[in-house]
């Protein structure tokens, strides 16, 4: 069962730049979400307090938030509590470095109930991909394998191609 998880936490005023920088520094090479079982996609977003940029469409420019907010959102196919537990485990000390910028952060030990309290329930979930990250990675690796096979075998006669195909993909 695919579901959407959105957790919205108020960031302490003045901490948003530091939090944004920390998250950016941790997501360049390898996203921690990729290591959490059952993840289809996931992201951290620090939401600005100021009205949206003048480069945004006019319809989005009005308003603003009283405090910056940290949104942890994900599309998952495991129960939310289980998924959050796995996320905290994968993040390790980084979990504290992220949510300690948020008001009321109780620390990693009591984090799961605290995070679930701040969950914003979606009205409608749309999953772009039906496979989780592990399966997507497997599919991409298979695509690369097929590409290499296609290039290396172009020009072969049909019988030879069949033989090569079987020997390559029966492994």
């Amino acid at each position: 069962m695919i579901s959407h998880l959105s957790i919205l936490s108020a960031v302490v005023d003045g901490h948003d730049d530091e939090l944004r920088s920390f998250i950016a520094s941790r997501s360049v090479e390898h996203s921690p979400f990729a290591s959490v079982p059952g993840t289809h996609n996931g992201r951290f977003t620090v939401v600005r307090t100021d009205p949206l940029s003048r480069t945004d469409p006019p319809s989005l420019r009005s308003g603003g938030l009283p405090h910056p907010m940290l949104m942890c959102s994900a599309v998952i196919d495991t129960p939310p509590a289980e998924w959050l537990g796995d996320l905290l485990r994968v993040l390790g000390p980084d979990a504290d470095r992220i949510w300690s910028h948020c008001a009321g952060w109780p620390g990693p030990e009591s984090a799961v109930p605290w995070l679930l309290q701040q969950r914003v329930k979606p009205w409608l979930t749309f999953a772009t991909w039906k496979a989780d990250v592990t399966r997507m990675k497997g599919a991409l690796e298979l695509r690369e394998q097929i590409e290499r096979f296609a290039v290396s075998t172009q020009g072969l006669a049909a019988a030879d191609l069949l033989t090569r195909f079987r020997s390559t993909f029966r492994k």
Partner: protein
Amino acid sequence: MIRALRKLIQRPVSEGVFPGDIQGNILQGYNLAVSAPLFVRFGSPSEARTLLDEVLPLVTSARRWNAKPTSTLNIAFTHIGLAALAVPADVLDSFPKAFRDGMRARASLLGDVGRSDPQHWDVGLGTGEAHALFEIQAVDDAELDRAVTNLRQRLTHLGATIVSAQRGARLPDRKEHFGFVDGVGQPAMQGTDDARRGQGQLDVFHQWLGLPIGEIFHGHVDADGHSSPGPSEPFTLNGTFLVWRKLYEDAAAFRSWTAGQAAQLDMDEELLRAKLVGRWSDGSPLALTPDRPDPATANDRDRVNAFDYSDDPDGLRCPLGAHIRRANPRLGLGFDDELSVRQRIIRRGMTYGEALAAGAADDGADRGIFFAAYMADIERQYEFIQAHWCNDGDGVNVGHDPDPFVGSALEGRKFTIPGSPPKFASPLAQTVVTKGGEYLWVPSMQSLALLASATISPLSTRPGHTKIPRKRMKSVRPTIRRTLSSSTRTSPTERVAGTLLGVVLAPVAFTISAIRSAAAVHPYGTVYDAELEVHPDGPALLDNTVLGSPGSYPATIRLSRGFALPRRTDDVHGLAVSIPDAGGPGRRQDFLMATVKTKASGKEASLRTDRYETLFSSLLRLATPQGAVVIRAVSVQPMPPDADVERGQAAGLAYDITATSPGGGPSTVARLTLGNALSDEAGAAPSFNVEHDGGGITTLGTLNVARKIVYRASHRGRAARHRKG
């Protein structure tokens, strides 16, 4: 239905192009022979402003040329260059992040890695030293040298230094160093170009319209129906961004690689090259001529871009990964043009370096292209194209395949030529290397004058549009005296009301035109050659418009009967005027007028009459850069009594064209004289359309919004009838 309605509501309304306030070489290429892009570092802010003040009169705007100049000058700024001019922080911060970061900081996103890594870039290009680009173009080397020497003296005198001096020269036949004609595919812009298949924006009726001007210039309506965002006041209007890159082309490596791959794939080498590019070397597109180059197509501007890939979804003619298909997928990504219309750019590049002789080995010389592209939003347009369509293949449905020319990390990658079986050119070779570049802002002429002044106020302390001192305005030639006021724009309320009215009337127009197999109103007419003589010293209201630019303009006119009632019955007569090059080559201006009478209230109403020698009026308000105007035509020279207009006997008939501002009296600004009637074939070509506003006079108000929708519905109805046979 919802989507159709949304597109109708969001249909951009042309706000017009004001050539006098826009720098040149953007909407229309100069096509000059040589260029000298000079990247300049300013001295002190005051010296920089003095420098700008001195060169302002030399800067070339987009105004129509009476004669081609021997040299041109245009100026653009980097973000740090604007800071060096002491532009206030509020204004500096209002520029989009990509521009503020600069090209070097965006290198990884652009795929400038390996040999293209910024650490290998030419001195002064993308190093943070350049404050501005002064680009001179000229007809020949002698004129270029003269202009460069002149500019260098001014620069030196005012404390500026040239951090990178480049020199470009067009190769014969407009080819680049790999042997292909370059710059063939450009967007057709609304109000300036005739829209052709594949070159603009697809409307709800699947007709191609010009691309909204807001896709390139700030402060105008873009393809999403919004005003395109740019920097804050006082620079909100008529600026654009320029992405400038120096791209080295390894001609010897390209020739060697394509020869090797063609042999390996048992394929004609010229065909392989065409598959990589998407066009044959003469510019004819594989989408239209997949088997061989076709010079007739290549030289026919109506056909050379008249394709949209909708009939080649698998890339059997033009591969999905071909360079031109990736850079502009047209309808090839599905969902009509929804996935590609926001990524159009105007390219005005030029080659540099000597051509490598045919068959010659690599001589180690530096040669390539100065890639120059204009757009309203660097991140949404150029960076998206480069990162998602050229460096990555998923966005264009070719997996890992990068663009074979400008894609990133080509080593070990392949190019797929769809077929049964497909062919793979692999491994790719890097034949194009980035040698530097800058993200630049090209200000409007008015903003340029403001930068040269010492008083640019930040938004927080001085809201509203900052006016340029009148003394300084005189130095901007040509210029406009005021920016668009509210009276020269169609308000959002008027737009909504006009759209609703148009949606109500559109089915009626569609039905009538489908039944009649002709336009719903003014279905039949007689087309004549004509000449429009614009008088000097017209009212300031018409500055920067065709009716404010003295001279003689060839025109085409059409006289018609509004409801096509029987010839002896009174009818509302129509006079449509089309001036093909009103705002410069290809920038067409049309006026549609009808016979009117003046009511006791002073307002005009349509008049049914049996005469063409009478008073015609645009009836609805039009907009110039300075304000609203009504255009009228008053017959001044009677025809012979037995002349039959509708049988082509109106030659010599003349009208005085007058312009009237609200509350003001009419001014006679031009004389329109009819020539001979055109043959049926020649007369069938013009399609008079109020959306043609290349001469700087645009439509305005609720009824004009409705009229455009009704006209489109009428056109659609006629097309539907023709298809049905």
